[in-house]
């Protein structure tokens, strides 16, 4: 059974009173759960959080499924999130994603995500919660992933 750490519970309690409605606290709380559950949010986690925050499961699930930064499945150590929204797609990001898929790196989880809010430096991707890689090329990201998987 998933349970937050005492500090995690403390964090959720604080977030819940921080905004006008506790619905606004769902995003930070989901982040916290994801961090404490090895990088993803299981249905069990949703049920747990709904009890903790006294919200409907569907209310939390709506947020979870809307945002691509929450993972609904376990992820490998390197989670590469390639923006595939308009600006990045026009700059070839979908191509990059296709090519990365072919590389079949067993330490990498690939996701197509929605606009990362950095359209001016498209194409953009993000590894885990690290700073963005901007104006990225296939060669660059391939090299980075090779280096990091061998180390």
């Amino acid at each position, binding site marked *: 059974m998933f349970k937050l750490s005492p500090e995690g519970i403390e964090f959720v309690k604080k977030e819940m009173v921080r905004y006008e409605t506790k619905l606004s606290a769902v995003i930070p709380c989901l982040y916290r759960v994801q961090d404490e559950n090895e990088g993803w949010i299981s*249905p069990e986690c949703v049920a747990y959080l709904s009890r903790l925050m006294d*919200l409907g*499961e*569907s209310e939390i699930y709506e947020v979870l499924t809307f945002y691509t930064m929450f993972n609904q499945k376990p992820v490998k150590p390197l989670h590469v999130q390639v923006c595939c929204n308009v600006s990045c797609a026009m700059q070839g990001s979908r191509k990059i994603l296709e090519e990365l898929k072919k590389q079949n790196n067993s330490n990498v989880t690939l996701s197509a995500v929605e606009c990362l809010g950095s359209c001016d430096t498209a194409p953009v991707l993000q590894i885990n919660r690290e700073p963005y890689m901007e104006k990225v090329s296939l060669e660059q990201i391939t090299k980075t992933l090779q280096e990091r998987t061998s180390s």
Partner: protein
Amino acid sequence: MKKMIKCTINNYPVEVEEGTTIIQAFKKLEQEIAHYCWHPGLSIAGVCRLCMVEIEGNNKLQIACNTVVQDGMVITNQSQKVKDTVRWGLEFHLINHPLDCPICDQAGECVLQEQYMKFGAYQPLMSEDKVKKRKVVDLGSKIVLDTERCILCARCTRFTDEISKTKELGIFNRGDRSEIGIFKNKPLENDYALNTVDICPVGALTSKKFRFQQRVWYLKKAPSVCTGCSTGCNIDVYYNEEGLWRIRPRHNSSINQYWMCDKGRETFKHVNPSGRLKSSFRHTAEQTEKMTTFQALQTLKLDSKKIGLVLTGSYTCEEYDAFLDFFQLHSIYHWKNNPKNFEDYDNFLIRGDKNPNTKGLLESINKRQLKLEDCTQLEQNISHLDLLIVCAPENHKLYPCLEEKINLFLKSKELVWISPHSHTLLQKPINTVWTIPSKTYFEKTGTFINHHGTRQKIKAVASIVDSARSLEEIIHILKTGQTDLTQIASIRDKMKTNYFMEQKGSL
């Protein structure tokens, strides 16, 4: 009193209360306006973008559901600009809609279809393929979801958030993958769930029980009052020559608003011909005699018998008055569906008193200052009675104690059972039992008084079982010895010709 302000809608001047939204003003004027997501009983969502209006002096079109009328506003939805915008809005809704109207249960009462007839582009402009989504998604025991047909108006989710407060439904994912759904194994099972089927403007939410049963344009509808409990929600009953098919809520701002409970929607089955008691019978240990109600009442021989009377809250005020005036007893036995939870209330609509007119029964009794006794007292007195008359519940399903009580009543030397339905226990008695068919709410005219004391009239819609008699009619036969009820003006006016005959000519 709120301040009144003036505005002009489609060239008609109108006065509305301050704070009224434009769409409410349109409704008040009975001017047509396209809309999907707005519903008078829910909060404003403003997501379908169909209720566009042009306001003089304002370059941009506005949505009528979320714009408040200002004094002197000149508003129209007849301009070419508005019409074009609505046409494009509709086209947008149809990008991924499957257009499977021929197999869709909503066809005929679908708002998307209705708007399409007015604003349709008729030649689809999309070259992209439609997004395929889940069809026939099981949401629980009552409702099926078709996510392709959904236009994401969020009426259903607002219902489970704001009205039932059960929060089962949500909109998951985003963009063209957005769909309505439930969280994993939390089905949509609340007591009011089927209201979402009513308010869904398209065929995305359909009722498991009703779907594929009937095409809605073949059904007639009649206004009535729900007999499922003492709240007395206002309803429309949908029927055809085969019988009743469904019940939906009818708006009444002081009783049920736009809603009703799911159990209440089931209270049409007992009206239908199958299973109804279709003539009177006299059962004894040795034999069963079939007879007309007239004959049955003749064989009762009421004179000089010691009579006990059991009443339930299923009948109209007029029926109670007729009965009590005729029998002139000092005390009446009140049979309740379940004395333990009779006073229950779920703080919304559902009450533990599963009768439409308990208040009316009590009123008739109090007017005459009669003594009110319950079934435990009857148990003590029953051996002293010659004849027990039971005006049984109209809908046996709502009386869990039915069999137990019938066994009690059977202890009487003679028993008269008046109800739309008989029961197997009554058919092999030790003593003598008469069963007499009575009318259901669908077949009689009269008054119900609900839990709050509101008097509501019901009207006979059609006769389902020709031989059934209301309590008033039974008393009339007893009083006059006449069977021809059409001789009595007060009853004649309340009678309806048989719906079957009305349709097909007399047999």
